[in-house]
Structure formats: structure tokens, C-alpha cells
């Protein structure tokens, strides 16, 4: 049966929200891994019943969970994330060099073609890959070994590799983003990497046009146009039409260009969604109004989507991994908030309704379209 499964990671567990294609009534299961932080969980495009979840706690560290039945049952798999070779150092907040130390997995990105292959973006920033369903992990150390590595430094949330975008037209090409180093691309399946930050301008760093040091928050791509990337940066919404070789700002008429997530419509590659947030120190919507902004022109011209969203006294945040779309004929758009609401729109953002209102703070939302 056609339907949708929404995978929600929260500060205190994971939840699986399921519905048929109408997306009117939802079955909610969870909390899975109650009491643990679930930074991210995501399904394999090659086998929708294969899910991976990043489970962590300040007490007991990192675990990876795998499900083979769409989230009904889970088993812990490998959790050994050892940096390749001598870990080395990166820049610390005070300018000194600091040893690379594993903290947690921020993002899991299953392969587009193989359910047993999955990538993990971790803090301190590095990219790992498993080819055995998460049992063992090996670092793709060419990224961290880039000569700019010792100059990377943590953002306020830690030095995390939080975004992994796989190119559906080229299995050798992967994009990643690191806070606060910037965006990087490999064209040889992870052996070598280069920064792709030309055109980014960040006022919070000594050289606003530096090769690295930018606080990229999220990158999104439409699978039919893998050379076109949209980026929500710390400040600024950016667009690249050459696979990241250069970027231009498309913030246009947004009320603020700070924010975390960015997503692209399933069927309209020029339709893009962001959630403007007031500022880097005031992590809530401007004027207490929760508004998704949609551009149908690939950026620059944006319209506020407000129907069904709170338009007064709303001071939640929407984190970088907490927005996604489904690919049903009428494209669904979903996002979760730090206030524990998960909102859904079944009409490309024109109107919204909460699926749930009172979960723990939502860290991630991933949507599977089931056929």
C-alpha cells in the first residue's frame, strides 16, 4: 500500500509516524530507545525496511541501531568509530591545536543502491563508511587529511560533519558539510576532497571569503539536477549551479537569512523551502511567527507559508536535519521543532497541520515514501 513513514529523532528517543497516502491519520510508535538522544535515523532508498539510527548519550556514548523491518524491531550494530591512523589535531576555540576526539554520529546517509552501505558524519568532523550493514566502520580519511584540516574549528554546537549528500548520477561524487569548516566534495568516492566554498561570505571569520571556516548548516539537492545545490548557511541562503564550484546568495526577500534546514520539492527542482530563524543568538522565528518560506524560482523570491502554523508567541527552533519531503503526487513537506511538534503539509506547503504536538525536542525528521 502506498504510504508515508516519518522517522523522527528526538532528545529522548525515536518515533515512527506512519500513514497511508492520504496522510490524514497517523499511527505513532515510540519512543524507541527511550531516554537516549537520537540525532538521526534514516531508511535505505534501496530497501525501505532497512533503517539506521544514531543513538547516543552523554553517559554511555554512541550506538548504532539497525532495523530490517521498518522500525518494528532493532538491533545494535557496530559502534567503533576509530579515526584512521594518527588522529592529529584541529584548531580549538582558543586558537590552540586540539586532538581529534570522537563524540557522536550526527548524520547517517544510507547508500542509494546498497542497503548494507551507509555513511556516518561524526563529531569531531570525519566521514565513516560501513559496507556490512553498520557492523564495522572505516574512516574515509582523505577528508580529514585535507591540508586545511588543522585549521578547522568547532562551531557552537561542536565540530560536526552533519550533512552528506550523495549524487544519484555519479556514485563517485559525495558532498559533505562541516560546522565550522564548510562544504567539501569528492569526485573519487571519498579518496580525495576539496573545499567548495567559493562565493560564501561569512562575517564571523577573519577573512570573509576564506577557503574554509564557513559555518554551513545544510545542503539540499534535487535528484534530477545533481549539479544544483541549495545551502542554508549560518547566515545566507546560497545556490550553486556547478556542483559547488561557486555559490551565489539567493536570500532575496527572506525576513532573516539565518536558519538551519533547507529542502527541495519532490517534483519541482526550483521549489525550495527554508525556515527563517531570527538570529544566531535568538534561535526562534522572527516575531513569534512560525513561517516556512517557499521559493518557486530557485531562490531570491520567497513567500511565507503560514496556514496552520502558529502565528503568535511561537519561539521554537527547527534544526538542520528536521525537515524533509515525501514524493507522493501531491508533495508532502514535514518538519519538527524543538518544542516537540511535527508538522506536515500534504499540498507542497500551502497548509499545515501537526501530526504530533508533544514529543521531546525534535532533532531530525526523515520521510520515506512507501510504494
Amino acid at each position: 500500500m502506498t504510504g508515508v513513514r516519518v522517522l523522527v529523532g528526538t532528545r529522548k528517543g525515536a518515533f515512527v509516524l506512519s500513514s497511508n497516502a492520504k496522510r490524514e491519520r497517523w499511527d505513532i510508535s515510540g519512543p524507541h530507545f527511550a531516554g537516549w538522544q537520537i540525532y538521526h535515523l534514516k531508511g535505505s532508498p534501496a530497501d525501505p525496511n532497512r533503517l539506521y539510527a544514531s543513538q547516543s548519550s552523554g553517559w554511555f556514548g554512541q550506538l548504532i541501531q539497525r532495523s530490517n523491518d521498518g522500525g518494528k524491531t532493532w538491533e545494535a550494530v557496530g559502534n567503533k568509530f576509530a579515526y584512521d591512523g594518527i588522529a592529529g589535531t584541529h584548531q580549538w576555540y582558543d586558537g590552540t591545536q586540539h586532538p581529534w576526539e570522537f563524540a557522536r554520529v550526527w548524520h547517517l546517509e544510507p547508500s542509494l543502491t546498497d542497503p548494507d552501505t551507509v555513511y556516518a558524519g561524526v563529531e569531531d568532523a570525519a566521514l565513516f563508511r560501513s559496507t556490512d550493514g553498520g557492523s564495522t566502520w572505516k574512516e574515509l580519511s582523505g577528508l580529514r587529511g585535507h591540508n586545511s584540516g588543522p585549521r578547522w574549528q568547532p562551531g557552537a554546537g561542536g565540530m560536526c560533519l552533519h550533512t552528506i549528500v550523495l549524487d544519484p548520477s555519479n556514485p563517485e561524487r559525495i558532498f559533505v558539510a562541516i560546522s565550522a569548516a564548510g562544504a567539501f566534495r569528492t569526485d573519487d568516492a571519498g579518496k580525495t576532497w576539496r573545499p567548495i566554498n567559493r562565493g560564501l561570505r561569512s562575517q564571523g571569520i577573519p577573512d570573509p571569503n576564506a577557503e574554509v571556516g564557513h559555518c554551513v548548516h545544510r545542503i539540499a539537492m534535487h535528484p534530477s539536477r545533481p549539479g544544483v545545490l541549495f545551502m542554508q548557511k549560518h547566515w545566507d541562503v546560497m545556490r550553486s549551479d556547478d556542483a559547488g564550484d561557486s555559490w551565489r546568495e539567493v536570500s532575496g526577500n527572506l525576513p532573516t537569512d539565518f536558519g538551519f534546514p533547507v529542502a527541495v520539492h519532490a517534483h519541482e527542482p526550483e521549489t525550495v523551502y527554508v525556515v527563517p530563524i531570527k538570529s544566531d543568538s535568538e534561535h526562534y522565528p522572527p516575531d513569534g511567527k512560525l513561517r516556512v518560506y517557499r521559493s518557486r524560482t530557485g531562490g531570491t523570491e520567497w513567500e511565507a507559508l503560514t496556514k496552520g502554523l502558529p502565528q503568535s508567541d511561537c519561539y521554537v527552533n527547527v534544526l538542520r536535519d528536521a525537515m524533509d519531503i515525501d514524493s507522493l503526487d501531491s508533495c508532502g513537506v514535514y518538519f519538527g521543532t524543538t518544542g516537540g511538534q511535527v508538522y506536515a503539509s500534504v499540498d507542497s506547503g500551502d497548509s499545515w497541520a501537526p501530526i504530533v504536538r508533544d514529543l521531546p525536542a525534535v532533532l531530525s525528521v526523515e520521510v520515506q515514501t512507501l510504494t
Partner: protein
Amino acid sequence: MIRVVLPTHLRTLARVDGELQLRVDGPVTQRSVLDAVEANFPVLSGTIRDHVTHRRRSFVRFYACEQDLSHEVPDAPLPDAVATGDEPFLVVGAMAGG
């Protein structure tokens, strides 16, 4: 047999109820007890001490016989009462985070 009490979250992970009863060959130390825990319950590897360095995780504590043994060296003998199974070795999630 050595008795080990795990915190709730680790019991859930290991899918056990109550305390563990483990055979430990040789001297009974933090290291040998944790080696036995991880050998019997591989899912707990990395949750109590680091995979590579074997350093105790910062917010995990080790208690036994009403003593805090968290800062003892890993190869120090545990109290006789733990070695004989009269008292359990407690793995505790520290009070932290407010």
C-alpha cells in the same frame, strides 16, 4: 562468580534483568571485570569505557563496598568482597546534567 550491577539503560541494551553473574579468570580488577562484561555482552563495548583507550567514560562511575573506585587504576585489585561475590561491582551513570 563476580556480580555486576548495570544502570537501567545498559541493562536494556544488553537485554538483561537484574545483576550479571560473570566468571573472571585471574586477578579481579576493573579491567578484568569489564573485559568479562564486554565479552559476554558485546553491545556494551564502548558504553562504559572507550573502545580504544579503555578510559572510563566521563559520566560513568564504579562503586563497590560503599567506596567510589572510579579513580582507581584499571589493574588495581577490587575489594575481596567483590572477588568472592559477596558484594556487587556497581556501574553507575553519574548524576550530571541538572
